[in-house]
């Protein structure tokens, strides 16, 4: 064991230390971000495809992110119908969004941003299967 006065941390140790910090930070960001996107395996809906032929998309599941706009209608059995504005290709595109009654607890307001997993239902509306705030 050398004398006390000779004990000093080497610059290499500091470099390794900061590299480890950056690596851990990066790994954390990677894993938690992955974990924070619950619909990452679901295809993103392109509004153009929907506008072009919504019927052809019936039964398909997509993810979509946008802002609640106007309330278009309400039925106790079917749920709430909204216009939902999605940014795509630099444009703001409205889509019809049906929120089934099982989500009635959620206080939906104009301007709220949501990330949704939707299914194109038999009426060619985007019916929400899962939703979380963006």
């Amino acid at each position: 064991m050398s004398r006390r006065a000779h004990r000093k941390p080497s610059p290499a140790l500091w470099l390794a230390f900061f590299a480890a910090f950056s690596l851990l930070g990066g790994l954390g960001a990677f894993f938690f971000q992955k974990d924070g996107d619950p619909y990452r395996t679901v295809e993103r809906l392109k509004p153009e495809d929907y506008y072009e032929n919504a019927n052809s998309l019936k039964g398909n599941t997509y993810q979509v992110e946008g802002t609640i706009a106007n309330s278009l209608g309400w039925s106790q059995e079917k749920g709430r119908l909204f216009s939902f504005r999605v940014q795509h290709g630099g444009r703001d595109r409205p889509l019809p969004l049906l929120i089934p009654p099982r989500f009635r607890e959620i206080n939906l307001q104009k301007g709220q941003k949501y990330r949704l997993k939707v299914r194109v239902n038999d009426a060619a509306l985007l019916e929400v299967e899962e939703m979380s705030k963006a």
Partner: protein
Amino acid sequence: MGFSSRIGDFFVVAFPADVRILWDVLSLDSLELSLPASERPLLSDINLHLPGGHFGAIVGPSGCGKSTLLKTIAGILPHTAGTIRWDGRNLDERDLAPHELGYVPQFTCAQPRLTVRENLAYAARLRRSGSAAEIAELVEQIEAETGLADLHDRRAGVLSGGQLRRLGLAMELTTSPSLFLADEVTSGLDPKSEEEITLLLQGLARQPGRLVLLVTHSLRFLDRYDSITVLTGGRLAFCSRPTDLCGYFGANSPEEIYPLLAQRDPANWGEEWVSSPEELGFEAEAVVEEIATEMTRPETGVSAQLPGLVSQTTTWFGRRLKLFFRDPAQAVLQLALLLVFPAVVTLFAWNGLPNVKNMTMSPATNAFQQLKDALDFTSQSAKISTLVSGLAMFQVILLALMGSNNAAREVVGDRAILEKEKLAGLRPAAALLGMIGFLSLLVLVQSGWMTLFVRAVGQFPGDLFAQFLPFALVTAAVTSLCLGISSWTSSSEQASLGSLYLVGFQLPLSGAILALPEVLGWVVRPWISAYWAWSGYLQTLRDTRFYDLVRAVTETPLAGSEISAWMLTLHLVLGLICAFFGIRRSDWR
């Protein structure tokens, strides 16, 4: 009683029924200490050989290297050439064990707010293992030995200079060291106190196998020492009996020696001493006496083994807690911050958070009404989101300030004592764990009270624990980063300034007020604790309209709760690792 004779590095000692060979306990051979930036070495070609049971003085004019030599022997300063041997062992290969070395520096190592007995008890408990009863008995014995028994309940801060030096010596005796080094412990004392301390040290040197070396300016009481070592300009000019001192230099009195030294180059004095035709030996009687006492050495009741990590940690923690409550200014300041900071936050929401008026969602309303709605909503959004986001960031910044106040002086404020205690065997990890224990209490109280108070007055919605977590983590992270700063700076002012900058940059770089350019944001945000705490806190409002409004107005992306907690934990660990290495490094001044 017996006979002794010196042959080279050895003493041959003969008793009527036994013959023994005793070697010098301390040997310095061609010792040199140079600084990279300095042309002249601080110490050069020092050859010194001293036996056990010996009381030696190191004297010389100011700046001659007396204290430097003592620190080099202690291992505080790294010698650049030569060897130091203790009891035949090369110290470069195996350093002095903490219990072997007693080092009394020029400054006081006692905590002024603790009593004499408490200082001694804590010193003993940090340096050696033993039951509470054994430690108490040892402390009483040392008090009696050093004449401190009548002062045992007096605080160190009110002791006189002589009493304080006595306490410093007593603290070193808790491990009964065999090498006892005292640096200028008689400086500034009146002649009576100086004589008392000198006599005390002389008495300590008569313990078996112990070598006591005292660096002193004073040339009084030189006859009390077994040897006098004279240094000049980092060179050894003389080392022998006090009776030979004046004769060697051709002086009538010791006071004439310093002017004589100044008349010649230090190298000449060094060469003259090396080529001195007659090696002046030490008193044979002292060596014989040492052997005799060694043979009848009594066993002490308390083991000189270092206490374990846990024991040192709990001792350090207990003393820190006691010091905190013994310092009214510190306790009042902490209490004031604890009460005032949350109160300041609630000034902005003393009546609770405002209600959010929602926009009409019906497409049937006319365009003018829709436009008016949108305008009202935008105006309200700006106000409420600024309030909610601002209150969150305000709490974070104030907690960060408390964190910086907690730790900025924690290491550097008592650095000298910490260095001394490390030399005496305190593990850096134990000191750090003790600090973590103490600071954790502050962090929990500060973040807990801030969360509860602001939440109650501002009527914040959301989960209580989820809101407490980012606040506790950011306080802990900033506290630990400031502890790191404290352990790497050389003054309290530097540490305070560094910690203040750390907190000051949090607000602008968090993006909570003004969004940073995208690339800069990605580079900077990982390092900004306030950003992660702010994001983590706002995520707890996710199910409320407040979150929507903040999201609608703030351009800075909000991180999720998990990644926020992860990054704050990394900051906390980063600070603690920096603090560990900072505490571990040698920083004697």
